[in-house]
């Protein structure tokens, strides 16, 4: 009887371990997707295009935020260096929001994000005359998905050559 009970308990523990390890595996898969996001800011490169070698064209934002991340500042410094080397090129900064907000607020938020990028470029010596800000709000997503990863790709400011 006693042995039997111990055996039963062991089985229960084993079963619990199995359940736990299953959970752990699931979590890993989730982290893989999360591997393209930090917090809820997109850190992947799927949608990124390049203005020149080593000069990514876009920066990403957290939900409802327009604060530049460390990676965003690095991208914008590369853009500023490229713009200084190419003084005849003007740019449009296109600010975007994800679909999880009201249209009018998102228009304002897109403008605020593009301006955050503009301000940073200006502190690195790019004249405001060379920069136009254009907000699209949530009107031009790059990813049509309805999930956190898609939304993170859509919260962006994209630097586009104007000429």
């Amino acid at each position, binding site marked *: 009887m006693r042995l039997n009970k111990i055996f039963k308990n062991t089985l229960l523990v084993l079963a619990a371990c199995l359940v736990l390890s299953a959970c752990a595996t699931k979590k890993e898969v989730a982290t893989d997707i999360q591997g393209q996001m930090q917090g809820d800011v997109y850190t992947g490169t799927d949608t990124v295009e390049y203005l020149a070698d080593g000069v990514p064209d876009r920066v990403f934002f957290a939900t409802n935020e327009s604060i530049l991340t460390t990676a965003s500042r690095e991208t914008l410094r590369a853009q500023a260096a490229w713009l200084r080397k190419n003084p005849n090129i003007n740019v449009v900064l296109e600010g975007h929001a994800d679909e999880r907000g*009201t249209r009018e607020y998102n228009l304002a938020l897109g403008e605020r994000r593009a301006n955050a990028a503009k301000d940073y470029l200006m502190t690195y010596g790019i004249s405001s005359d060379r920069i136009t800000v254009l907000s699209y709000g949530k009107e031009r997503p790059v990813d049509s998905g309805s999930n956190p990863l898609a939304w993170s790709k859509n919260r962006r400011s994209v630097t586009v050559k104007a000429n």
Partner: protein
Amino acid sequence: MIKKILILLFIIIPINANALIEVDITRGNLNPLPLAVSPLSIDEKSRKGFEKILKKENIGSEISNIVENNLRISGLFNPLDKKAFLQAPDIANLKPRFEDWNLIKAQALITGKVNYVDDKLRVEFRLWDVLAAKEMMALAFTTVPNNWRRVGHIISDKVYERLTGEKGYFDTRIIYVSEEGPKTQRIKKLAIMDQDGANNKFLTLGNELVLTPRFNPASQMVTYLSYFKNMPRVYLLDIETGTQEVVGDFPGMTFAPRFSPDGKKIIMSFAKDGKSDIYTMDLENRIVEKITNHPSIDTSPSYSPDGKYITFNSDRSGYQQIYVMKNDGSDVKRISFGNGLYGTPVWSPRGDLIAFTKLHKGKFYIGVMRTDGSGERLLTENYYQEAPSWSPNGRVLIFYRETKTNSKGEGFSAKLWSIDLTGYNERQIKTPTDASDPSWSSLLSN
């Protein structure tokens, strides 16, 4: 673009009957009033006359169908099956046999007659109280035959008003944004239709992105946002002439426009250097006034019907909330304090409520609250919905709803929906394409 529509309306018999029927539209109406809409009777000569011009076999039946449909979608009335009617339309219009109508449980009866007179459409109709065996109302209209749908809407409004004690909202139009194409590259056009979805017309071609059209409550002018030449600016459109003009001369994006209740001003946001503030422009003298001055985002302004106050959306507290201020920008008060984010406040034309969009725990709600923020009531919950616009009587809200896409990013759609203040009567409004950003006009006739 759209010809000025004139309708001649004259009352033939003003009646002062003490009706027993009354419809309470403030409560959830789970027992809509049963009523019978008898087809409008028509003589053979008139029937043929209209068949020739309007290509409709029986214009009397067509008009009564419009009335029946309007009353049904209001959620307050239950139009009974015509097959159960015992009395012929022409005789019923002269003198209903009330016991017959009582037998099929109709509490009210609508009868009428259509005539073709001097190339004009003449319609008379009567509303009867079946239980009291009395005539409640009798009216006649004469108009050009092409206005036949509007006659149906006007009759619906008169019946609604007589039975509920409040103005109707059927002789109205909806302006909205028609949407087509993939989610990442939507083609958007301004479109207009009757409140019941008929007479849909496109007002722009889709060459540039257009958003948020709003009617002038005092006329058939529209203000909206256009990305013409990639410069998002507020425009004014005269839907009768098709004339368009940009509103003001702002060095940046203007958006979120609405008219003042008297139609003389446009109120909107202007975004510059990451800040959005609220401005007004007087359409007569072109004077621009800055109403808010704050480093936050201030947008989605909407006047109270007396023009003395403005409700708007701001993130000055850190997140999107709803505020009310005096029309000069003074005395700013936050009114939304519930959990979640609040946007798109719109003042009811009755003045008593503010409708809004709320985002809470990943769900979007359309709701209403009193103008001091008390009495918050959520009417509908969904994956995504926003931008409520009031019916002119302040009883129904129209808004748009978007669907969630699948794992491949497919299955996106945007549709117009309406819900009444009770929250029970929710309906999709059919449009030829996907649709968003609806705005309800005032009553075309008064």
